[in-house]
């Protein structure tokens, strides 16, 4: 059987892999992308569709900013509309408990070029009249918004393919070995692919591949709990998300111009990477219906028409794995985006292509390196940041 060869092999065709393939082609690198199913079917295709920067781990904002810049240029860049709408995003809290945290975050985010405006009281009611009486404050990010996750990753893949990337769907990677300067990737049907650089962008399936290079990670697969209403007149243009210390309160929703309201949150469901299935738990659905009415009482009159889930990968510190391998030269990672990778996708693709092409990136990704897990064995590095984590955790797409 003929061995396919390229400058770079990407394992995984989610938004990370597809975008990286696209940007590598822009840099003139030849690319093979291997996807076990179809492009963008799991976390990338089933998530909420948030294109949101606020609420993120602050050192992630430069990456999120780079990504937002690409989202805004996307139709020109890839020649397809993936329904990105910079509609604005509000992060709200119930009562007064977390108002201080919203303020602190807004203050700190300014240094990263993210301008947030805090609304409370009459001013908040006037600006966002749909919010329920328990909502205490809203942090408004005017440039954030939402896009259609079902379209984004496949659109990047098609654009990459039009520019010469070789994309192999329904191709299950079995083993990866390094022989000399080259990675040899064998698929379950016996096909062999060869390249001097390799990117593992395999989401919840990445841990098995990391293990092959003796870089184990504690990855947990979980499923987002999503739902959508019937279409109603377009009125709720701002994306809304709740920040809370209680999982069951962390809901988010957005309305799309055709009228449906898409929502998610309030906990996660079971996911089975081997079966390629993830489920929505009925009790989560019921909690969502309850919480959404609290968040926006007018939603009480609507009907839920469908729920869905997908397979997401979570890391113990709620941060992704991104950057070069600490052990194997030419090997790179971009996975484990912990339910908040969709917005980052285009930026990650751009950064990973830059990194693979030039060996460096202008965007800081230090906190996301896989080497942090080796270090963490001896020292709990992030415990010092506990105060910050309070603000940063519980963010989802």
């Amino acid at each position: 059987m003929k061995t396919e060869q390229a400058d770079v092999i990407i394992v995984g065709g989610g938004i990370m892999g597809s975008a990286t393939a696209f940007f590598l082609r822009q840099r003139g690198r030849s690319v093979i992308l291997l996807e076990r199913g179809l492009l963008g079917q799991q976390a990338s295709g089933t998530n909420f569709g948030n294109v949101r920067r606020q609420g993120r781990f602050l050192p992630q904002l430069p990456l999120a900013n780079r990504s937002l810049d690409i989202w805004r240029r996307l139709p020109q860049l890839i020649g397809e509309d993936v329904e990105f709408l910079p509609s604005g995003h509000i992060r709200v809290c119930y009562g007064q408990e977390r108002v201080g945290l919203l303020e602190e975050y807004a203050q700190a985010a300014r240094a990263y070029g993210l301008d947030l405006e805090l609304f409370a009281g009459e001013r908040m009611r006037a600006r966002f009249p749909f919010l329920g009486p328990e909502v205490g404050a809203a942090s408004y990010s005017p440039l954030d918004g939402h896009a259609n996750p079902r379209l984004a990753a496949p659109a990047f893949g098609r654009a990459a393919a039009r520019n010469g990337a070789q994309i192999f769907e329904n191709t299950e990677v079995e083993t990866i070995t390094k022989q000399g300067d080259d990675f040899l990737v064998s698929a379950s049907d016996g096909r062999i692919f060869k390249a001097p650089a390799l990117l593992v962008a395999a989401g919840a399936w990445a841990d098995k591949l990391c293990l092959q290079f003796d870089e184990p990670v504690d990855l947990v697969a979980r499923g987002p709990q999503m739902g959508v209403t019937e279409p109603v007149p377009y009125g709720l243009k701002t994306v809304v998300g709740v920040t809370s210390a209680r999982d069951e309160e962390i809901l988010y929703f957005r309305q799309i111009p055709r009228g449906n309201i898409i929502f998610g949150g309030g906990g996660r469901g079971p996911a089975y990477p081997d079966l390629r299935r993830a489920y929505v738990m009925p009790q989560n659905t019921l909690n969502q219906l309850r919480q959404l009415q609290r968040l926006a009482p007018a939603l009480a009159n609507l009907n839920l028409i469908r729920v869905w889930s997908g397979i997401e990968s979570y890391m113990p510190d709620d941060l992704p794995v991104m950057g070069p391998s600490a052990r194997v030269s030419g090997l790179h990672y971009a996975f484990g985006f912990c339910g908040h990778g969709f917005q980052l996708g285009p930026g990650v693709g751009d950064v990973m292509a830059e990194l693979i092409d030039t060996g460096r990136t202008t965007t800081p990704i230090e906190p996301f390196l896989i080497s942090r897990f080796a270090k963490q064995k001896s020292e709990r590095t992030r415990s010092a940041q506990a105060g910050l984590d309070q603000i940063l955790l519980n963010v989802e797409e």
Partner: protein
Amino acid sequence: MAQPRVVIVGAGPAGVRCAEQFVKAGLRPTVIDEGRRDGGQIYRRQPENFKRPYSALYGSEAERAESLHRSFDALHAAVDYRPETLAWNISEGRIHLLSGGRASSLAYDILVLCTGATDRLMPLKGWQFAGTYSLGAAQVALKSQACSVGREVVFLGSGPLLYLVASQYIKAGAKVAAVLDTSSFKQQLSALPKLMARPSLLKKGMSLVAAIRRAGVPLENGVTPLEIIGDPERGVQALSYRQANGEIVNVSCDAVAMGYHLRAETQLADLARCEFAFDQTSRQWLPQTDTDGRSSVPGVYLAGDGVRILGADGAENAGRLAALAALADYGHTVMDAELAALRKQQLAMERFRRGLLQAFPWPAQQAASLPDEAIVCRCECITAGELRRVVCDMGAIEANRAKAFSRVGMGRCQGRYCGHAGAEVIAAAAAIPIAEVGRLRAQAPVKPLPFNLVEDAS
């Protein structure tokens, strides 16, 4: 061993006979029914204050309908009957319910899904106009509310229900403009040997045809429907079709009742994670069971038209068989002779089923020739052209992929109305066998769920 907790979904022929069998064995099943009263679709009972006699409501099936209703009435004290209750999800051994705006759930050891069937629909240009009904809906209007769906109704499609509903409308005094069957007389003739498996039913069918002709209603075979002519203001105005001889005819009407035999309601089986297989004969994906109704999931049994379309008599047998299978699995003694007799009857039902599919085939080729501007998915207003675009330009040749890209099957009905036709459009556009297109995965809720429901403690 503690008595197993038995939940039956559906109170049509399969559900009622299934419940009866459990009661005979000393168990008290819970029967979940979406309907206001038992009887299912075929033996739907009229509202309490309606007084039409059985003969008027069910014609030749009056005796069977009455027998089923009496049987269930007799079970009243022995079962936990929950009418007007939607089973909206199944997860981890519990079935989730909604009734009167209240949500609750029930744990089960034995779950028998007797979910029945609905009309199988083939889109037609203009079928979004008000006045277009499925045959089943037209029949519900008549049976349940004594209403006709229009002043002048065209009956279009194929299958036994086409003739049954048309003749019921004629009998009720409604004006039937025409009965148009897409299958040819030759196809029907060729199926006769198989249809002879149930001679009495064949005879009933032929008498329906005769009744339609006697009433002077135009009845044509081998037609090709072209378009429902109408507008958003006035709704349906006429139906345009091509006759078997090639001539194009417009028949004036204000309602069209259409359907191409039936499709199994399989969402709950899917949510229960039962395995499915493609049935070439009917060109639909069906949940797999053994002869007696055991699904691939332990504790979950399937019976009636929700598994394969054997009709009401076959469903009664299947309901009994599924109960017997579950009882046997729970250590009850089941009479072999009883099982054998039911299984034997089901073989004849299966032969007849194949005969019906041969006589009244699903007009798959119509999907291929559907004009680009015709709407396939009415919930989301997606045209055949848009669906073909995602197949041809975006490579979406799998049903769920095409849904993700085009939204076909993404709306309120979740593809229950357009899923089969959508798959045919995809198969034709991609030039691949229909089985390769796959099937739309069911997602909860089975029917839309109101946000403002009240949760009961379970």
